[in-house]
């Protein structure tokens, strides 16, 4: 083990500091964790000094324990050359397997000769021993056994064209005769070309198989993504796919009744049963769901606009007329009131159109909604202004009335005061204070008011 030749320069971390070779039976110190070959550190402790050679810390034999299995594996798996390299063995193997090789396999290991030759030990390929070739019945040295088998003229061989189908088998010395007659030999050149082509085709085949594998996996990914998209899109997925197919003729015919119907302006509501008409109401694809109006309103819209609507609140009637016809949404659909408007925009989702169509429809409904909200706000603003003006007028009139009343009361009070104070002897007071004097005019006035005769109030 100590005299092995390593194939590659070993990692410096696996080299024992004492012998400067990869660890053999590595051991680690418990005290300072340095690692050495077992033999090296034992010799150092016995022959040199009881301390670690690296850091000189005290070290006893008991502190030495086998190194980590990973270190042992690392050094055991280093590639080494066979110890019999000098004898001619070129075998290399992992260090841990070399013992088995030398013991069992190496042809250059010296062993006792069992064949009675004079030498005590020699190679297993004994040059002193001869074997008898069964084919040609001549004797050759054992060491030349392999060499002889490749050149013996009597040994049975097969035609070199056996891989291509030649069944010939015979002695080697007959081979030249066969070769000259072998039909496969005649097309030897073809075989060479054929083999090259076959190899190229095999390569191409492998390449194509690989490509197919790649494509299949890509297809699976694409299918999976498609499935994800399908589940994410929900009902619209199928619609958008069916829309790529040319639309059937059923759709336009379904559209016919509504357009024909709504275009008739003079039809009266009583002529049509609304409940009958409503479920059949088709949806034109070019319209978004928002532009779709419930039939009741369409009917209504088809009527000529009437100045008086029973639904209109009486307070708003007077002011709504001047501005409503100027609104865009109003001119489009003739939906006059806020309550009607709300019914219009909440149309059911149209699942029969594409996702884009639905989105467009939703967007339109939102825009209509915002417009109607805007007009509603303006209308309520005007109503509020009107109401405020009216209230202001009422307040003003009340204020005038109050003022008149106040003036009258004031006049009455002045009259009373004049009667009580100025013309006292004319009127007998019903009650005199104990001191015989009136303390001040104000309680006097109160007293007078309390005792005012009921007929004076009627003067108001």
């Amino acid at each position: 083990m100590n005299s092995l030749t390593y194939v590659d320069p070993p990692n410096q971390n696996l080299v024992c500091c004492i012998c400067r070779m990869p660890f053999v039976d590595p051991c680690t110190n418990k005290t300072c964790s340095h690692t050495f070959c077992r033999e090296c550190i034992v010799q150092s402790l016995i022959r040199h000094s009881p301390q670690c050679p690296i850091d000189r810390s005290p070290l006893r034999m008991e502190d030495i324990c086998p190194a980590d299995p990973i270190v042992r594996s690392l050094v055991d798996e280093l590639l080494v050359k066979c110890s019999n390299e000098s004898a001619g063995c070129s075998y290399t193997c992992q260090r841990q397997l070399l013992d088995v090789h030398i013991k069992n396999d190496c042809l250059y290991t010296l062993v006792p000769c069992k064949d009675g030759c004079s030498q005590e030990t020699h190679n297993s390929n004994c040059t002193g021993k001869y074997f008898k070739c069964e084919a040609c019945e001549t004797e050759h040295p054992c060491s030349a056994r392999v060499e002889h088998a490749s050149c013996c003229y009597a040994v049975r061989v097969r035609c070199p064209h056996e891989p291509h189908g030649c069944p010939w088998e015979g002695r080697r010395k007959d081979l030249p005769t066969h070769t000259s007659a072998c039909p496969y030999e005649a097309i030897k050149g073809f075989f060479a070309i054929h083999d090259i082509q076959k190899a190229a085709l095999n390569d191409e085949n492998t390449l194509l198989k690989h490509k197919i594998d790649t494509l299949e996996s890509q297809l699976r990914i694409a299918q999976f993504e498609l499935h994800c998209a399908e589940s994410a899109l929900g009902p619209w997925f199928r619609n958008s796919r069916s829309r790529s197919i040319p639309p059937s003729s059923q759709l336009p015919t379904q559209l016919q009744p509504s357009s024909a119907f709504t275009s008739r302006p003079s039809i009266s509501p009583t002529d049509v049963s609304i409940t009958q008409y409503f479920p059949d109401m088709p949806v034109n694809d070019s319209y978004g769901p928002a532009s779709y109006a419930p039939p009741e309103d369409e009917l209504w819209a088809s009527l000529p606009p009437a100045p008086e609507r029973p639904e209109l609140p009486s307070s708003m009637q007077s002011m709504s007329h001047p501005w409503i016809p100027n609104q865009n949404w109003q001119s489009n659909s003739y939906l006059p009131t806020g309550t009607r408007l709300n019914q219009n925009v909440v149309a059911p989702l149209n699942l029969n159109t594409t996702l884009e169509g639905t989105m467009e429809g939703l967007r339109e409904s939102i825009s209509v909604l915002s417009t109607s909200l805007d007009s509603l706000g303006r209308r309520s603003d005007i109503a509020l202004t009107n109401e405020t003006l009216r209230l202001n007028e009422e307040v003003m009139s009340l204020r005038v009335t109050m003022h008149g009343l106040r003036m009258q009361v004031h006049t009455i009070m002045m009259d009373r005061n004049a009667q009580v104070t100025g013309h006292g002897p004319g009127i007998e007071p019903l009650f005199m204070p104990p001191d015989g004097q009136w303390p001040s005019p104000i309680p006097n006035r109160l007293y007078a008011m309390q005792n005012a005769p009921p007929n004076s109030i009627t003067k108001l």
Partner: protein
Amino acid sequence: MASISSRRLAKELMEIKNDGCPVGIDLVKADDFSTWWFTIEVMGESLYPNEKFTLQFRFDQQYPISSPAVQFVVTDGREAPVHPHVYSNGHLIALILSCRYVHPFLGNEWSPVLSVVAVCVTLQSMLASCKEKQRPVDNDRYIKHAPENPKKASFPLNA
């Protein structure tokens, strides 16, 4: 052990030839694995300007467990440096070359992990740090009784 000694020395020799010696140290001869010669020169400012000394290493079969026998060559016109730790016969007082166990904190005696180049560098720095050129005090007495191999001599430990 013979194999370990020679393989270890072969490895050191290969490293010296591949990587070269440190500055001021040169390999003179290493024909076998028993005796190597080096020249050693103190670089920079020192008491030994332009002086070149020759070191002799002798290895036994126990190397590197046992220390090499190191001494300055004093034959053929070569001389040992005048130094308090160098006898005039070329022997050295250096703990690094002592194979005896002393207290672990007292000295840097030989360790199997040291190498020939490491010893050279240590001696180079020993010369470089010299304050006064003089022989050891017991020089004359030692020379009279000194053995041929410095490892067999008994040095005072604290010299």
